């Protein structure tokens, strides 16, 4: 995949979703521009990332972001990885594209607690971030 033509904008959901609705229901995320050259971080994806990869997440076996991360810095890192990272097709029937970028500095911890410098993001065919984690 040739990324060079892309001018990438990371458009994050800053508006709030109200009410409790579960997976499988319509994701009500604020928009956001929906051009082909942008990647969108929905409210759902942000919640997903925070649940598994935030520094205080109890999830085991998942990379964790470094203490002090904010939504804004996450968006910045996703944008940088999308702009500059190595892209490859998602694996074994999963749709979308995987982007991996090495920040050359610690951004979190690996699943065994070691320093993680790289970020992997998964972006679906609608240019929405599905997940993102350090490794």
């Amino acid at each position, binding site marked *: 995949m040739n990324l060079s033509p892309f001018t990438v904008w990371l458009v994050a959901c800053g508006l709030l979703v109200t009410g409790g609705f579960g997976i*499988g229901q319509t994701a009500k995320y604020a928009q956001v521009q929906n051009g082909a050259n942008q990647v969108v971080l929905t409210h759902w994806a942000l919640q997903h990332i925070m649940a598994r990869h935030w520094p205080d997440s109890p999830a085991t*076996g998942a990379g964790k972001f470094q203490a002090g991360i904010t939504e804004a810095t996450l968006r910045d890192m996703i944008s940088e990885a999308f702009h500059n990272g190595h892209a490859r097709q998602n694996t*074994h029937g999963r749709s979308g594209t995987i982007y991996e970028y090495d920040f050359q500095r610690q951004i979190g911890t*690996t699943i065994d607690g070691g320093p993680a410098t790289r970020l992997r993001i998964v972006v679906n065919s609608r240019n929405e971030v599905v*997940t993102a*984690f350090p*490794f």
Partner: protein
Amino acid sequence: MHLDFRLNEDTETDWASVTEEDLRYRVALGNLIFRVGDKDFSAAWEWIPLVDLVASFHEIVRKLESGSGSETFEFTESDAWIRFEKKDEKVLVSASYGEGVGEIPLSELAEATKSFRERLHGEIVRKHAHAAHNAAVTKLLGSAVPRG
């Protein structure tokens, strides 16, 4: 070889409208139980999307049977992986998070994957009746008839 799962309880998902992406990343989560001989590649992380896992294993087996020499399953929320390397009619199994290499006949891996798929399908449909009519569930788990 022992290939099995533990499905988390889930009372929030609307199974009538679950999408393939939901199944790949967000629902039907649980643990993998995977032992090959004396090697244990189980992963009790609670967040493993089990439908995605068995659909991926199914695809991996299909590729190995079709002549591929090596396939790697990547977990969705970490860089952890399980590698399957074909050696004649056997498969060498290793994992980034486990020690050693296990060896099993490809036919046994195929049968265990099929059984896993059927049992997972059965448990999901038993707990969530709407899943039986969901197109994404059917696509990834097939129209497998659970074993008695």
